[in-house]
C-alpha cells in the first residue's frame, strides 16, 4: 500500500514540498488578518472626530467655540489620530525595511553611475535602516564597494533628513501639502548636494586608511526572512519607535492645543515671518550644530508655525537640525578630512537655505 498519511495528517514532519503549502496557508491567513486589522483600524480612525466632539462638548459640557473647549477637543482628537497614523506607518515601513538591508543597498549602488546613482541613493536613504552612529561603518562599506563618493553622500544626506516619523507627523498635524513639500525638498537637496560633491572630485579628502580598505572583501551574512519575520520586524519597529516618540507627539499636540487658543497668532511674525529676510540664514546657522531626532522637532515646528513663523524658515530650521549636527561631524571626522566635512556642511546648508527662501516665496 502506498503511504497515505501525508494527505490525511497535517501533523506530519514538514517535508520540502509541504513547507511551501504551509507557507501559502500562512500567507492567506496573514492577509486576512491584515485586512481585518486594517478595517478595524479605519473604523476606529473614522470615529475619532465625532468622539472628540462628544467628549469635549457633551460629556464635559464645555462650550463650543470657547478657547478651553476647543483646546480640549483639539487635543482629544489629534493625539489618537496622530498616534494611529504613526503606528500603522511605522509598522508598514518596518516591514518594508526588512527588504532593504544596508548590504543590499550597497550592492545596488555599487554599479551605479553618478546622476542615476544620486537619485537612487536618496530614495534608498529613506527605506534603508539607518542611525547616525552607523554612518561611519556604512560610509566605509560604500567606499570599499566602489560606490562613488557623491552617491554615498546623497545617501548620507537623505537617510536622516527624510524621516518617516517626521513625514507622518507633518501630515497629521499640518496637512499633506507641508508633508509633501518636506519629502520632495529633502530628496532634492540630497540628490543635488550629492551630485555637486561628486563633481568636485574630493576623493583625496577621505582619510588615508579608508583608501587602503578598497581592496578588501565585505563580509555579508544574510538571513532568509519569512513573512512572519517581516511582520515581527514591523512590530518591533512600532515598539521601538512609537515607544520612543509618543511623548513628543503628545507634547507637540499639547503645545498646538494651547497655541490654538491662547498665544496671539502673530507672536513670531516679526522675527520669523516672511518679511524678515535674514531669518532663513539665521535659522540654518542656529540649526546646524544642534541635534535632535525628527520627532523631537515636531512640537517646536508646530509651535513656531502656530505663532506666525513662515513655513520656509521653519522647515529650514528643522532640516538643518536633523540633517547636520555636531555629533555626526565628530563621528565623520574619523573617515573624512576637515575639508570634505566643510564642503559637506556648506553644500547641504546652502541647499536648505534655498529651500527655505523658495517656500517663503511660493507659499
Amino acid at each position, binding site marked *: 500500500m502506498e503511504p497515505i498519511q501525508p494527505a490525511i495528517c497535517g501533523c506530519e514532519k514538514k517535508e520540502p514540498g509541504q513547507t511551501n503549502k504551509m507557507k501559502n496557508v500562512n500567507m492567506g491567513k496573514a492577509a486576512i488578518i491584515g485586512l481585518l486589522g486594517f478595517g478595524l483600524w479605519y473604523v476606529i480612525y473614522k470615529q475619532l472626530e465625532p468622539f472628540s466632539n462628544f467628549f469635549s462638548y457633551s460629556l464635559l459640557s464645555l462650550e463650543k467655540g470657547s478657547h478651553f473647549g476647543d483646546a480640549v477637543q483639539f487635543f482629544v482628537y489629534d493625539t489618537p489620530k496622530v498616534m494611529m497614523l504613526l503606528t500603522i506607518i511605522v509598522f508598514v515601513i518596518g516591514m518594508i525595511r526588512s527588504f532593504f538591508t544596508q548590504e543590499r543597498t550597497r550592492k545596488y549602488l555599487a554599479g551605479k553611475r553618478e546622476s542615476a546613482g544620486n537619485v537612487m541613493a536618496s530614495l534608498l536613504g529613506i527605506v534603508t535602516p539607518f542611525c547616525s552612529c552607523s554612518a561611519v561603518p556604512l560610509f566605509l562599506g560604500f567606499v*570599499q564597494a566602489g560606490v562613488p563618493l557623491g552617491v554615498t553622500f546623497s545617501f548620507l544626506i537623505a537617510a536622516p533628513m527624510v524621516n518617516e516619523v517626521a513625514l507622518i507627523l507633518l501630515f497629521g498635524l499640518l496637512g499633506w501639502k507641508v508633508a509633501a513639500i518636506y519629502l520632495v525638498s529633502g530628496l532634492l537637496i540630497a540628490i543635488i548636494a550629492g551630485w555637486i560633491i561628486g563633481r568636485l572630485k574630493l576623493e583625496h579628502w577621505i582619510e588615508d586608511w579608508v583608501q587602503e580598505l578598497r581592496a*578588501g572583501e565585505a563580509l555579508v551574512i544574510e538571513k532568509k526572512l519569512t513573512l512572519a519575520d517581516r511582520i515581527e520586524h514591523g512590530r518591533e519597529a512600532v515598539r521601538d519607535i512609537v515607544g520612543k516618540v509618543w511623548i513628543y507627539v503628545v507634547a507637540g499636540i499639547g503645545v498646538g492645543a494651547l497655541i490654538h487658543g491662547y498665544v496671539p497668532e502673530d507672536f513670531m511674525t516679526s522675527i520669523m515671518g516672511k518679511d524678515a529676510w535674514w531669518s532663513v540664514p539665521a535659522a540654518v546657522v542656529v540649526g546646524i550644530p544642534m541635534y535632535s531626532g525628527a520627532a523631537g522637532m515636531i512640537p517646536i515646528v508646530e509651535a513656531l508655525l502656530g505663532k506666525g513663523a513662515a513655513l520656509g524658515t521653519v522647515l529650514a530650521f528643522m532640516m538643518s537640525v536633523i540633517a547636520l549636527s555636531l555629533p555626526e561631524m565628530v563621528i565623520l571626522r574619523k573617515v573624512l578630512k576637515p575639508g570634505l566635512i566643510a564642503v559637506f556642511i556648506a553644500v547641504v546648508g546652502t541647499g536648505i537655505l534655498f529651500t527655505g527662501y523658495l517656500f517663503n516665496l511660493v507659499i
Partner: protein
Amino acid sequence: MEIKICGPGCASCEKAQKVVEAAVAAKGVDASVTKVTDFQEIAKLGIFSTPAVIIDGDVKCVGRVPKQPEVEEWISNS
C-alpha cells in the same frame, strides 16, 4: 570562549551586548564579552554594518541585533 561585539556604541549595539550577555548567563558558559568600538578595527574585520557579533573569531551576524535563542545556539555550536 571569546565573544566580541562590534559597534560604535549606539542604541542597537548596546542592545546586542545585552542580548549576548543574557545568552552567556543563560548558557552558564565561561566567556569573555568585549566590545570593539574603533571603526578602523571593525573595518579591518571586514564588517561594514553594525552591530556585529563574533564568537571565537567567527563572525555570526552583521548589521542587526540578534535574538537571544539564536545567540545561545551559536554558543552551543562553538
